[in-house]
């Protein structure tokens, strides 16, 4: 029996890409956001180099507004696997008290996009792996697996390098860099089925549980700590909810769900009528092309 399954093919493609970067790029780093896609990426990196550890560090850009549970999970994972985990916080932004309540979309720019750019520059990384998938969003559907960034770390969608077969062009000049997306061709369902098949640990926020939430706009926002600013009339209530994506807790919408096992999550994903990004408040901000604009500015 030699026919590979769909997941086998996706896994082999991702491992090939990760190894290419390690072999050809001068100073790679893997972005680690603690989410399910990052958990899959980390798992693939461990497999790609076994019995060696991944020959590059992992970078978590911390906005300081992540769910508490995410940070605990990150630290434990790094310790268990013996990998080098770098945390980067935009100290200047944090000192100025930039927060998701008062700063709107400039919060994302300062604490995520600018922080990421600062971190990549500080360590001189020439290639950064991201867990972006083409099924997530329209401008991502157009992006190459090896995505060239100029000195300002900006993406030029109208002039992408042609990418043929699996012959990746990794050539760059001083100051330029690559963003690399090994799981470009995975869908949300593929991610969940792979997590199940490989038994990959993920943050428990993905599983439905009674959690304190408030209704805000069309979203259910979890009250993760006492920094959460409640609007007049908002009273946290306990609801059985889970998260389809994870980010900063005041900006991440929960969904009401009974899915407390992987099988139930997979069933729910397959029957879902809304794409996962609807629960990200950030993507709806700025209209149809907001992701493309941010990517041009250096966001992942």
């Amino acid at each position, binding site marked *: 029996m*030699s*026919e*590979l*399954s*769909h997941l*086998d*093919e996706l*896994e*082999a493609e991702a*491992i*090939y890409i990760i*190894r*290419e970067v*390690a*072999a*050809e790029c001068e100073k790679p780093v893997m972005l680690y956001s603690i989410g399910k896609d990052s958990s899959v990426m980390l798992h693939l990196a*461990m*497999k*790609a*180099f*076994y*019995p*060696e*550890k991944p020959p590059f560090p992992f970078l978590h850009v911390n906005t300081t507004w992540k769910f508490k549970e995410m940070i605990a999970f990150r630290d434990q994972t790094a310790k268990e696997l013996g990998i080098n985990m770098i945390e980067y916080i935009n100290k200047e932004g944090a000192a100025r008290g930039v927060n998701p309540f008062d700063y709107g979309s400039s919060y994302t720019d300062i604490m995520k996009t600018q922080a990421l750019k600062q971190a990549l520059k500080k360590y001189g990384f020439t290639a950064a792996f991201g867990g972006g998938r*083409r*099924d997530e*969003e*329209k*401008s991502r*559907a*157009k992006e190459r697996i090896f995505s060239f960034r100029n000195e300002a770390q900006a993406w030029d*969608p*109208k002039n*992408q*390098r*042609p*990418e*043929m*077969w699996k*012959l*990746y*062009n990794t*050539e*760059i*000049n001083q100051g330029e860099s690559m963003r690399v997306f090994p799981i*470009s*061709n995975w*869908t949300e*369902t593929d991610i969940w089925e792979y997590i199940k098949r490989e038994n990959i640990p993920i943050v428990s926020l993905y599983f439905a549980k009674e959690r304190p939430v408030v209704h805000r706009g069309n979203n259910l926002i979890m009250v993760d700590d006492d920094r959460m600013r409640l609007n007049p009339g908002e009273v946290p209530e306990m609801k059985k909810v889970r998260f389809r994506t994870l980010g900063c807790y005041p900006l991440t919408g929960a969904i009401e769900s009974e899915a407390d096992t992987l099988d139930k999550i997979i069933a729910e994903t397959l029957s*879902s*009528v*809304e*794409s996962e990004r*609807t629960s990200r408040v950030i993507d709806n901000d700025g209209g*149809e*092309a907001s992701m*493309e*604009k941010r990517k041009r500015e250096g966001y992942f």
Partner: protein
Amino acid sequence: MSGLLKFITCGSVDDGKSTLIGHMLYDSKLLYADQKKALLLDSKVGSRGGDIDYSLLLDGLMAEREQGITIDVAYRYFTTDRRSFIVADTPGHEEYTRNMAVGASFAQLAVILVDATQGILVQTRRHSRICALMGIHYFVFAVNKMDLVQYSEKRFQSIVCDIQKLAKQLGLKNVMVIPVSATEGDNITRRSENMKWYTGSTLLDYLENVDVSENNENTEFYLPVQRVCRPNHTFRGFAGQVESGVVKFGQRLVTLPSRETATVQSLLVGDKQADRAYAGQAVTIQLDREVDVSRGCVLTSDVHLPVSRRITATLLWMDDETLTVGREYLAKLGTKRIPAVVKNIQYKIDVNSGEQIPTQTASKNELVVCELEFTEKIVVDEFRRNKTLGELILIDRVSHMTSACGVVEHVNSNTEKPVFADGSLQVGGYLYDELYFNPETVLLSCNPSQKVTYHIGDRVPDNGDSFHYPANYDVLSAAAQTAVFIRNGAVARILPLADYLYTGQPVLDERGLTVNIASQEEFKRFLTAYQMANKKKLASLRNQWLSFGNFRRAAFTDTF
């Protein structure tokens, strides 16, 4: 049958590619509710007066939506009850042909749209040709906009006739033709009520059922090495993807290009020990002995895999800058990254007629057949025999643009004719070839004259555009360990370098450069220096022992 089908849609501008895919996703209830909502909203503000504009689902870049065209390839993922699909929707404009080719390199099947009101266009032919070039074996021609020709069977049949001619010209094997209307939805997912005369399958039906698996029996194993895994002193593994065949624990393998044999001592598929691994799997192989293998080398069961410096390839030129003969590019082939020079262009292929047209250069979106030379021997094979070892890209060394992609048509023999030969004593080189210098591009090139081998007694050339040799001189080749005496303008003697004694005549090397020796002692020192030399750092040695300007110069030229 594999569950996943990767296909592309292509065709000329406004043939309705994006609309077709959009309609397929919409009909198959494969859209999320929020995407549908966004689609309806976009259509309202769009140009089509309230009707759903399905193409808005795929044209995701701001510039695309502004201009109403597809610029770059978009990937969509959908699953029906029967199969998972990845579809690459590609641009129709000639300007963006290279982005179309990106999609083609990824796909197993091509859906080529033909506008029923227009028939086969130049772009249809171009795209079909590029799909065939990039290795696609399955073609569906969707004759679109049938609603605009009153669903005429006669019109359809006349287009089918043209498609058959095209398929024959390009040597396409598996060809299917379906009449559709992408805006109305005829024969996309539902059988058309308007074309009862068509009894074949709908497009989705066909895509769900087509078997594109290649017959892979009896293929030899090979693996281009991606990297060497050395976590400690005891483990040394070669990591890469199995590109063909099966590899087993205990199997004898050959390393290329070093041609050593070794046995598989351990085999990891990902992070798990395995007895065997198949094509497509990511593995790490440990061998039972030390071998000279690094990234770019190949492990194989096939001792006959070619190793060569010269190939003939068909290139799709993709750069705004034109192709320059004689210029050095960076080639990627398998896992090898190596400088390559385009030695000559044999002809370009007219995308419309297939005619072979003589040319000296190639511009963007042109197909050319040319000869490439690498700086060293690499493992390379014909694309039709071993796909991965026959695919390549060329990268501009200054702009870093991916300038071309191509497929290997032929691996050329390494055995260049020697310049001097006497039995087993042979000397290569380019003593009598012309050197040209273009002061505008600052490129130096060697223009091989008719390659002639000179034997004892043969007269040799004394004057060319770029050389002027005396009647008597000695040629020393450190590479061939051979010396040649030229006396009175003819080859007088060919002897092993070890037997050479300094004669007092001018001394040249096999390239026509002067060797700076004037005594037997100096000859001995020269010989020792070359024997001790690090092969990768010859520049300082050459600077010490060789001079350029005595008998050789570079003639000016305007070409390349």
